[in-house]
């Protein structure tokens, strides 16, 4: 697994989940789409995943998710993320079964959850933090909010690196993360989480100072280097997405 060679057990899970949300630059047709189109794609897939209510719907939903995922050459990452979401899916399944006593509807809810995970992570896997920032700005959200949100995504890989190094350092001091009962295991997290949080806080205050030193907040409306522009491919993609969505939803709702 990525980056997890220095950690073990539960930490691998955290790594893979973060890895699933981490952007990696690839030259594919999906990655090159306008970020607004990618957002539309994700939201559409999300709605489709949410609306599916039987086995055929689910099959169609996953086909709909896998087509753009394969175009983005991200199927393996997506599947890996789903495999690691299974633990939480099992939880959802059990809770549902307790309340509904129906294996069928519990399965549908669980698969729906996986569809939601897959559709949402599609956006973060194919959209760079910069592009996320442009989209949020395009929606005219407050600048501080946009900056904070984009920065938090941008720092996911940095935090992962910190986490690996901290775990390595504490294991070298004899910390055994996977030993002991449940209480001991939670206590084992203290030597890992404290340095992680402290370092994140120190880094964020340093970042704030460095930003201010470079004039952040000096003007109300800073100019932007890039502006989002839709190309022919983007319009085509929007058309395909909307048509496919209309088709699928009408199938789901038995309109046709």
């Amino acid at each position, binding site marked *: 697994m990525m980056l997890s060679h220095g950690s073990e057990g539960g930490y691998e899970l955290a790594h893979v989940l973060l890895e699933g949300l981490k952007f990696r630059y690839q030259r594919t047709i999906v990655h090159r789409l306008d970020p607004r189109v990618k957002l539309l794609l994700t939201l559409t897939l999300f709605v489709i995943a949410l609306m599916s209510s039987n086995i055929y719907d689910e099959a169609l939903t996953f086909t709909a998710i896998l087509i753009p995922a394969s175009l983005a050459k991200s199927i393996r990452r997506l599947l890996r993320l789903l495999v690691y979401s299974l633990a939480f899916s099992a939880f959802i399944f059990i809770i549902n079964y307790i309340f509904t006593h129906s294996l069928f509807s519990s399965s549908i809810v669980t698969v729906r959850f996986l569809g939601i995970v897959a559709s949402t992570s599609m956006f973060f896997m194919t959209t760079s933090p910069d592009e996320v920032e442009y989209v949020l700005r395009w929606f005219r959200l407050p600048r501080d909010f946009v900056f904070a949100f984009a920065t938090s995504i941008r720092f996911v890989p940095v935090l992962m690196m*910190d986490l690996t190094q901290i775990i390595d350092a504490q*294991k070298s001091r004899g910390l*055994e993360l996977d030993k002991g009962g449940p209480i001991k295991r939670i206590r084992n997290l203290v030597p890992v989480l404290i340095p992680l949080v402290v*370092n994140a806080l120190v880094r964020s205050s340093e970042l704030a100072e460095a930003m201010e030193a470079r004039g952040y907040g000096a003007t109300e409306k800073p100019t932007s280097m890039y502006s989002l522009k839709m190309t022919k491919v983007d319009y085509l993609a929007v058309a395909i997405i909307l048509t496919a969505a209309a088709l699928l939803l009408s199938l789901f709702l038995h309109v046709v």
Partner: protein
Amino acid sequence: MAVIEFKDVSHVMPNGIMALSNVNLKIESGEVLAIVGSNGAGKTTLLKHMNGLLKPSSGSVFVFGSETKGKSVAELSRHVGLVFQNSDHQIFSESVFEEIAFGLRNFGFAGEELYNKIISTLRWFDLYDLKDRPPMTLSGGEKKRLCIATVIAWNPEVLVLDEPTVGQDYPNKVRLFALIKSLIGEGRTVVIVSHDLEFLWPLSPRTVVMANGRILTEGSAESIFMDEELLNSAGLRQPQLAQLAMRLNLRSPFSSLDDAVTWFRGRI
């Protein structure tokens, strides 16, 4: 006896990058070994194999004669103490005292023995007066000293230091040097990874030069540090005392500034 031995060790990172290729290295008991090379040469990856944080993709690593495969990091760390570069990545306790206690407790020390070990470590590292301070409030030099102390506390036979001089000012470096020197004096095996050749030079360690995941060459400090071409090819700069000796066409470099001064006085 070799305390640590690398046999044809290669390590492939999960992203497919070959971090170590075909490394063979023997570290003898009681010796001082320096591993030098530019950033990304594979030094830290090599270190992480010494206490089992990483296991070789192919080949084997032996620590005190037994292979690291199948051994936990905790088992190996009992004998090979590794101090990482960034002190802030390991400090978490509410006091210096507790920070030192952490490793000792992990290795099963308790009661009076635990207390005595902490106190003697605090004294040895001149941290006794700081024992109740939160370690996060210490200065950079004090933090570094504390991090080495937390490891030396359980008395591992081998001490491995990753870039100990990074971020240390001159007085702290001098202090760190004296500290390492006295740890060596105790007969401990010490491995130092650094690209600070000026710092390493007076320790006259056996030196291993790494580049691109390979060991380019190894030899005595003198032979390595006088080889300007070799150092340049590994992205390193010769220590000034070695440079001076080379410019003067001397066969052996000056061991210290005083040594150089004596030589010049003899000429005037």
